[in-house]
């Protein structure tokens, strides 16, 4: 009898699991790490959706899109979270995404009217330095200074690509000359953000390419105010991180529900101190204490989504030529 009870219990449990709809979200690896937003987001959404939220991690934004292309319409993903505006045009061209119906009053420095993707956070690329170090106020000053910087390779890293777009957006045709000027400031180029940031913390360079929000981590999580971002007067390039619904999803309503949840306070208030970016919609409680110390770029730069592909190919070519000499 005991076994029977156990067996019927198991059957009931399986049935309960089978009844719970599963929402599968593909995202980049750092989103779902123990220190990223993933665990808290999962908990908050499951509390209100009567569903099972499952994250699948895949490298970074570019790897994420690559994976989706490999899987095509057969993908398990209902939502892809973690692309940015250098990738969205390419992503829409795959035909794998469906338009969304979310509207929100975004606190973005630019207006957002993309039919396929919903933004969840954003940030400015910036060079991070020690607070007591005088920073240059633009790329030309940096090129003329003896300051040493570490950057990431645009072929393997999202911030690396961001810097390419930044210089291109700020200087257009003069970008190759800027890169030639910067060549002797660049200590080295790394595969990813972690290596570069590690080198900077080791004292291998005076500045590292990161985000304006990086000093907030040191201030809030480590009570360390020794890091600051250098404000550049030609403006800072923006990274806007977005999520979209996969057209072939078997959970369209749930996916819509998640995208709406994503711009609500419950999700947005998790972002600043886990992803260390600005929330797309500032929650009712405002930003965490410490964010007010960050620099506010006077100008926001971004390459329009539909031009991103062409610009990035040209910018890479120029970058490789300038730095391979």
């Amino acid at each position, binding site marked *: 009898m005991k076994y029977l009870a156990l067996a019927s219990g198991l059957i009931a449990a399986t049935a309960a699991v089978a009844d719970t709809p599963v929402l599968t979200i593909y995202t980049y*690896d*750092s989103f*779902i*790490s*123990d*220190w*990223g937003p993933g665990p808290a987001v999962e908990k908050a959404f499951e509390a209100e959706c009567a569903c099972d939220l*499952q*994250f*699948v*991690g*895949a*490298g970074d934004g*570019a*790897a994420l899109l*690559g*994976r989706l*292309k*490999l*899987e095509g319409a*057969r993908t*398990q993903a209902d939502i892809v979270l973690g692309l940015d505006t250098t990738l969205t045009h390419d992503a829409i061209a795959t035909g794998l995404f469906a338009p969304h119906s979310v509207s929100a009053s975004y606190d973005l420095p630019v207006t957002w009217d993309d039919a396929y993707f919903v933004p969840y956070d954003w940030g400015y690329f910036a060079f991070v330095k020690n607070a007591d170090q005088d920073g240059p106020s633009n790329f030309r000053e940096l090129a003329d200074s003896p300051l*040493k910087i570490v950057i990431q*390779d645009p*072929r*393997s890293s999202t911030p690396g690509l961001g810097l390419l777009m930044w210089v291109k957006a700020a200087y257009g045709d003069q970008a190759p000359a800027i890169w030639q000027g910067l060549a002797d400031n*660049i*200590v*080295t*180029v*790394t*595969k*990813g*953000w*972690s*290596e570069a*940031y*590690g*080198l900077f*913390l*080791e*004292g*291998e*360079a005076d500045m590292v390419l990161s985000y304006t929000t*990086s000093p907030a*981590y*040191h201030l809030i*999580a480590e009570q360390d105010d020794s890091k600051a971002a250098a404000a550049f007067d030609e403006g800072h390039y923006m990274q806007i991180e977005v999520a979209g619904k996969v057209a072939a999803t078997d959970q369209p309503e749930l996916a819509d529900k998640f995208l709406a949840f994503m711009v609500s306070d419950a999700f947005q208030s998790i972002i600043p101190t886990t992803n*260390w970016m600005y929330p797309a919609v500032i929650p009712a409680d405002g930003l965490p204490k410490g964010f007010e110390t960050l620099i506010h770029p006077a100008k926001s730069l971004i390459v329009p989504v539909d031009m991103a592909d062409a610009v*990035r*190919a040209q910018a*890479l070519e120029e*970058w*490789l030529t300038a*730095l*391979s*000499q």
Partner: protein
Amino acid sequence: MANRPVAIRRALPGALAAACVAAFVASALGAVLWFAGGGGWPDAADWAALRFTVMQAGLSAVFSVTLAIPVARALARRSFPLRGALIVLLGAPFILPVIVAVMGLLTVFGRSGIVSDFLALLGLPKLSIYGLHGVLLAHVFLNLPLATRILLQGWQDIPAERFRLAATLGMGPAQIQRFLEWPMLRATAPAALLAVFGMCLNSFAVVLMLGGGPKSTTLELAIYQAFRFDFDLGRAATLAAIQALLVGGVVWIALRFTRLDGQGAGMDRPRHIWGAGSRWLRLQDTLLIVLAALFLLVPLGAVVLRGVVGLADVPPSVWGAFGASVSVALVSTVLAVVVSLWVAIAALRWGWTEVLATLGLSVSPLVLGTGLFLMVNPWINPARLAFAVTALVNAVMLIPFALRVIAPALRAIEADYGRQADILGLTGWARMRLLILPRARRGLGFAAGLAAAMSMGDLGVIALFADPHQATLPLQMYRLMGAYRMEAAAGAALILLGGSLALFWIFDRWGRGDAKA
């Protein structure tokens, strides 16, 4: 590769295993090509990347092995307290995740490292490590221990009787070099060269970081670009195939140049540290050992120090990851060592089996991972296979290294005792149990230790298979770094280092267990 006749029946399992390894690699490449609808043709930049990749790997191999020869010889002919511990510790750099090892190296040679600080005291400019010389320095740092260990194995396999005879005949170091050491090096140095060459071929993060920028673009980075930037899988697969062919060719050439004379059988007498030699020779050896130890252990000390500080910040999930990594390492070690032993037997008859089994060395991790993903994904959720795929891929990538150690040992055994065993009718399992396993034990233990340690440190090709709930230790360490938690990551690196060294020590110790027999 004129080999002793080995019955086909004995060679068959190894040949099959080698064919399986090659088929595994080829089908992954094929899956990518099939998905891409054909190959793409590399452009000028890709060819430049290929040339640079081969050049840096070749130079790294030559430098590492050239430096390893005197160090291994000094270690072989000197005995001193803690010699065993030193030898194990010297192996540490190549099992660390490269990023950790390089950070350690930078505390000595970096812009704000010890050497630069010292130069600044003298009023001299800072040392710049970034450039081809930096790449070579890092590769020597990472691979000198590997080469030294492979060569040291060769020295230890020279029977004590040979040295005794040499002493009786009044041979000096020069003659010992000519009659005993040179033939041994002809057998083991190509193996060491190959192993280092293979390690450096896919090393892309280190080359980029210390090479100073895009002029140090390796083939793996070109493959990254084809995959991430252009989503040109055809080109990525073609590049991977070119690299595989190239490595196949290099392996084949290296094996042709390997002399397989064997040292002749001995009675397994305990080794005397024969004729300590002149005072000058002793001084030279001591100096070499001290220099090598300083070069390898000072950066390592920096890694340990930083790790100890970070240990307090290490979150509990790191320990779970540690368990996962140890299990993966054990499974892939057993697989790699068993297959290598089979292939080593088969290679006595058919040299090409060794070439086939070495293909795992050459294939781009990104392309291999993508190919496997394409094959698996239509049938099973890849995340459910995370453990199996990691263990399998690690094994395939470790076989070349295990084989470099096991194959020469097996050739020596067969050359020295094969005829006798044939006459005695010792075949099948009995031959394995009575002759091969006991005599190859030292090599097997070392190969297993190497495989286990490398498998712990390997982040591998599994990004596409990652299980969100169970990361391996290196992956967890990278996640910590990616979340600004550099101190905790340093702690995790120390745990990884400790675990890898412990596994290495256990297997290697088992191998040396009968040294006194």
